[in-house]
């Protein structure tokens, strides 16, 4: 071992686990590099998502968290590398992958109701030119019920609070009945009730054996809410079970040493979660 800090070295685990992309893995990212105007924002990302786990993608602003999931979903063309879902390219398995975009990405003054938005999750199943039938509406209603929004089904979406809007977005993804989910900052700026409701849903999804990958802004709650973490700062700093990857060194490497206090706290939390006395 040289004198370099360990986080700068590829860990032994990384080296031993060669990417043998099993067709079972819901998501495998291989050698993915993404550039905006020739400036790379993601470098050589290598990641394989486990089955039936809640995964948090964490990293500072500009780390490329949103870029990573948007690239996985085919919204950004990568400069190099490839992404596979269950061993297949994304366009073959679209309906099996759900997506909850950032709340700011749409105009909430748009003239649709909460139920209309939830029903959009069914459109791919309905197909071209066919109307939304009663059974699809029932499925959308059921999804709204799961997030506790069935009472507001007929409300126009601008009349909902931020947290309620986020829950409607979640319901839309649930209505799709996908096998894995990407969520971009679903817990940003929501009230406590919504946060609990969303976490509840995430756990239900995990219980159904589905993988959920969530861009998350608050590293303090990662050990409480998530099983796995992907620490990202233009490159993968570390990935794996939260208890293993949430080390002070990894967090410092991710956040550039700026968040020492938070990093300490998170590590202490993680250790407490493992039953160790800090």
């Amino acid at each position, binding site marked *: 071992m040289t004198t370099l800090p360990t986080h700068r070295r590829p860990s032994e685990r990384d080296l031993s686990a060669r990417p043998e992309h099993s067709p079972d893995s819901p998501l495998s990212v291989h050698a993915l590099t993404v550039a905006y105007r020739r400036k790379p924002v993601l470098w050589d990302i290598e990641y394989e998502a486990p089955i039936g786990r809640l995964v948090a993608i964490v990293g500072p602003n500009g780390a490329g968290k949103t870029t990573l999931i948007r690239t996985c979903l085919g919204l950004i063309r990568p400069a190099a590398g490839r992404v596979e879902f269950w061993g297949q390219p994304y366009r073959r398995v679209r309906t099996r992958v759900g997506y909850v975009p950032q709340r700011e990405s749409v105009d909430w003054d*748009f003239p649709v109701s909460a139920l209309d938005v939830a029903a959009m999750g069914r459109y791919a199943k309905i197909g071209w030119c066919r109307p939304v039938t009663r059974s699809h509406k029932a499925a959308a209603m059921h999804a709204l019920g799961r997030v506790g929004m069935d009472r507001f089904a007929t409300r126009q979406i601008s009349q909902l609070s931020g947290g309620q809007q986020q829950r409607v977005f979640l319901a839309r993804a649930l209505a799709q009945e996908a096998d894995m989910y990407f969520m971009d900052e679903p817990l940003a700026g929501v009230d406590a009730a919504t946060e609990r409701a969303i976490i509840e849903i995430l756990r239900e999804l995990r219980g159904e054996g589905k993988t959920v990958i969530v861009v998350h802004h608050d590293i303090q709650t990662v050990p409480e809410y998530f099983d796995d973490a992907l620490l990202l700062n233009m490159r993968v700093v570390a990935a794996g079970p939260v208890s293993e990857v949430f080390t002070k060194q990894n967090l410092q490497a991710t956040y550039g040493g700026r968040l020492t206090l938070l990093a300490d706290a998170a590590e202490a939390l993680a250790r407490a979660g493992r039953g160790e006395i800090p």
Partner: protein
Amino acid sequence: MSTPASITDAGIDWPTLGELAHTLTFTAGFNAAVVVASASLLGVAAGIVGAFALLRKRALMGDALAHATLPGIAAAFITAALLGGQGRRLEVLLLGAAVSGVLGVLCVQLIVRHTRLREDAAIGIVLSCFFGLGVVLLSAIQSMSVGDQGGLASFIYGQTAAMLPRDAVLTGVVALLALIAAALLIKEFTLVCFNDEFASVQGWPVARIDVLMMALVVVVTVAGLQAVGLLLIVALLIIPPAAARFWTDRVRTLVILSAILGGLSAYMGATASALLPRLPAGAVIVLTAGVVFAFSMLAAPARGLVAVGVRRVRLSARISRDHALRELVVREKTEASAITPAALASEIGLSPPAGRWLAYRLTRVGLVEREGVGLSLTDRGRTLGRRIDRNHGLWQRYLIDQADVAPSHVDLSADLVEHVLSPEMVERLEAKLTHAGGGAPA
């Protein structure tokens, strides 16, 4: 040259009621009936297509498109004339219009994608440059010795009267096709307009759906050139859906209403233009739509200005009532003497006249009674005032205790929120604060 004192004093041959009734009921002769019917159908189609253009925030793209049809019309005329054909055949001219309109839209998109110019500049560039080209070509046609060129200028301002029955039928058929396409694809259009990224993740070909939407705009614009004119056709695409938006919060209703308003405007405008001399159809149609818009903006119950204004006044009246009652309740505990309306007004930050008006209102509804020059609470007023005071305290506690878990809500100051708390929310507040171990204030 004599100048009339006003524009209304010239002798206009007003139609008789009978003529009016005939035109409105399509019985004034075949030509008039066909023209009015096709204009109405066009209005319906424009209303539907325009609704999606509005929702996609591309309302002004139609303007660039419409202006860009002029060089196509002129070029088609010149080509046809040079080939020895009859220049003014509607199909040929409209084909030229469609081609150059599409070219214009493509130019807007190319400019936005490949240069640093924004969409507004790109639209302005295409609009003025294509139109400039059209004007040059028209002036070239004028100096050509080709007959029957008079009708060309009518495309700019529109001239329903110049429409032949077969032109009208063509317009109607095209409008009907656009209508059917929009009806079939309402679900896809809505999805793309609301959240195009989600649509593309779901596998919908967003670019192609966009092209389809734009194609419908092209079709409606070109179909409407003769009736409304290329300068004003954009109004028929924008005004009806913008007016319909005041009435509803649902896409389906918006589209249907927009179609109805568009159809109605076109129907009334075309009728008026057919009956009265010197009323250019396009302008009358647009002004009719404008009246409909103004009415919707003021009177619509959901988003209309009157309704919104009334709601705002009511809320502020309620807020000052609550403040006054709370002030009186608090005062009763500490001081024996009654407070004058003016003093109460200054306590809660109102002007003296507003305070007098408030005192009058509260007395009339029996929450407050006069006591000499002062005011005191009735029993009913006291109960209400205590409840308001309690809500205020609860919410303040909530903000202090729970602010850290609901950081996005801290900006809701207690002074405003307490007035909108429903009983159910108050219950939840109490539960939350009791759970937190504080115990609610009595």
